[in-house]
């Protein structure tokens, strides 16, 4: 089985979020990046598990600059066989998806896995766009993936329950929590990652479809008001008049 896993960076959850250039750019100064958890913990690990069970290869693909190499090495340390970096900043979802589709179209992958979203932009678009660009079936929010021959049986999150679908490979799938269990790399993996191939390829000529005009932070959290459990009237009146939620 030939498996492709899309790996993106995301700021560490402890990073301080600031913007520059009139609030149109994320301020990267001092920000530590990690592998986007949905990509790492679920998509990548499930890909590796399938390879371990059925044979084949796991390739990762990242649209990014050399600054992203550390997260790619981590994916290799966890167990991917080789990596491709498309040498450009990821400008928007379409740009990213188109770059990946251009690379993947002649590679014959049986399975393309993405995280359900990145934890910074929460766009949830790249997987679906890749599927459309490659004319492949797409299943989102997968929590379980089994493959038998060329049939994939996938459980996916549905509102208030689960949906089970069958699709034939090749396909694109976005991974949700539960698809696999996080793997911590080990020393053997870290050492093996040193020599695994990381191929840098030139980006295709793609024009992004969107432009960020402004970022803004959520309002600061206010203080907490404690209300005596005896004093229900006050609680109701505050929720009604101040918080305006009831």
């Amino acid at each position, binding site marked *: 089985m030939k498996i492709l896993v899309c790996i993106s960076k995301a700021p560490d959850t402890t990073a301080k979020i600031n913007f520059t250039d009139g609030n149109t750019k994320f301020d990267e100064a001092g920000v530590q990046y990690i592998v986007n958890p949905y990509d790492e913990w679920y998509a990548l690990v499930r890909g590796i598990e399938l390879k371990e069970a059925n044979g084949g290869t796991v390739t990762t693909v990242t649209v990014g600059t050399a600054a992203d190499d550390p997260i790619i*090495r981590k994916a290799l340390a966890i167990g991917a066989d080789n990596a491709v970096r498309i040498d450009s900043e990821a400008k928007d979802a379409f740009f990213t998806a188109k770059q990946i589709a251009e690379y993947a179209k002649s590679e014959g992958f049986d399975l393309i896995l993405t995280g359900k979203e990145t934890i910074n932009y929460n766009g949830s678009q790249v997987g679906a766009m890749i599927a459309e660009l490659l004319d492949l079936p797409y299943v989102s929010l997968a929590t379980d993936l089994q493959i038998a021959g060329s049939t994939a049986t996938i459980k996916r999150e549905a509102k208030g329950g689960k949906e089970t679908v069958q699709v034939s490979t090749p396909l694109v799938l976005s991974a949700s929590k539960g698809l696999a269990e996080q793997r911590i790399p*080990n*020393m053997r993996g*870290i050492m093996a990652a040193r020599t695994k191939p990381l191929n840098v390829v030139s980006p295709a000529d793609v024009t992004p479809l969107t432009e960020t005009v402004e970022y803004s932070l959520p309002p600061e959290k206010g203080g907490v008001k404690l209300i005596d459990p005896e004093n229900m009237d006050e609680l109701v009146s505050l929720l009604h008049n101040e918080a305006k939620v009831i």
Partner: protein
Amino acid sequence: MKTDLYQGHDYYLMDELLSDEHKLIRDTARAWIKKEVSPIIEDYYERAEFPKQIVPGLASIGGFGPYIPQEYGGAGLDQISYGLIMQELERCDSGLRSTSSVQSSLVMYPIWKYGNEEQRKKYLPKLASGEFIGSFGLTEPDHGSNPGGMVTNFKDMGDHYLLNGAKMWISNAPFCDVAVVWAKNEEGRIWGLVVERGMEGFTTPETHGKLSLRASATGELVFDNVKVPKENLLPNKSGLGAPLGCLDSARYGIAWGAIGVALDCYDSALRYAKERTQFGKPIAAFQLQQKKLAEMITEITKAQLLTFRLGQLKNEGRATSAQISMAKRNNVDMALKIAREARQIHGAMGITNEYSIMRHMANLESVITYEGTHDIHLLITGFDITGVNAFK
């Protein structure tokens, strides 16, 4: 214990001096600890038991002989990587780091450096994978700071050596599979012998009642006419310099480990001070608490710089024993002071096992004593700079 919220602190952007692989190794150790050890460490500490089930995991993250060459089952990493792993382990618990230090620097190191090829092939891969746990017997009941006075001895019986004596305060002793034991031959010269569990006359009673380093097992190594095969003598170095060479490597790891403890205490104190409100303000807003926190991060930053430089020297094979002594002494003392201040910042909560501070503080009482006491390291520096030996 509650969720381990630890995050590192890097005031002088020291991370920029590390390679991507260094950071991956460190972050891997940290992630493994948060997942596998932080949730259980308080419990094992209270029960005074080493959590043996973590041994394979500890091996997989490079906790056993990371700088030992790959051909012997190690990872062939540099000294900074070793230091970073020790930092992360001790950040969780000094006992965890002790187990790892003993295995790496006091058991694998002498077999690698002073052993022959058969000994390396026989023991190192099993020690690297954690299949074997090792211990290091230098200290005796009557010879602690003065190990050169040891009385444990072996006689050449023609086809084997006969070993007699007792070692005390030995980490990992109660369950070790092999022990590197330092003993005098008939001429009074110190050699290292590999003693294996199961050899007749060799016992390892556990030391109970420790109020420090409780998650690490400590015991005695008792030798009552133990027949040790001749091929178990480490042939390539003898004299007190041989065990001291191992101690250099372990002390270097402790210098990093102590930074881990200090960071954990500071991290917890900083978070607590920002969250805990008294007199209508977070206690972090009071000057007295700020003084404590500011001094902590200053001392940590100084120690990080000192220790990183020591790591560079060690990588180049230029770190002297005296330089290592200075770092061990400075960093452990720094960590102990920070643990005490951090405990006060936590108020009454600081004395409970909800927080790691008291455990760290108690652990550091061992760390400031073993591998050369605080006093002895000062005398080493004194000797180095004046040329006058003030030990005796």
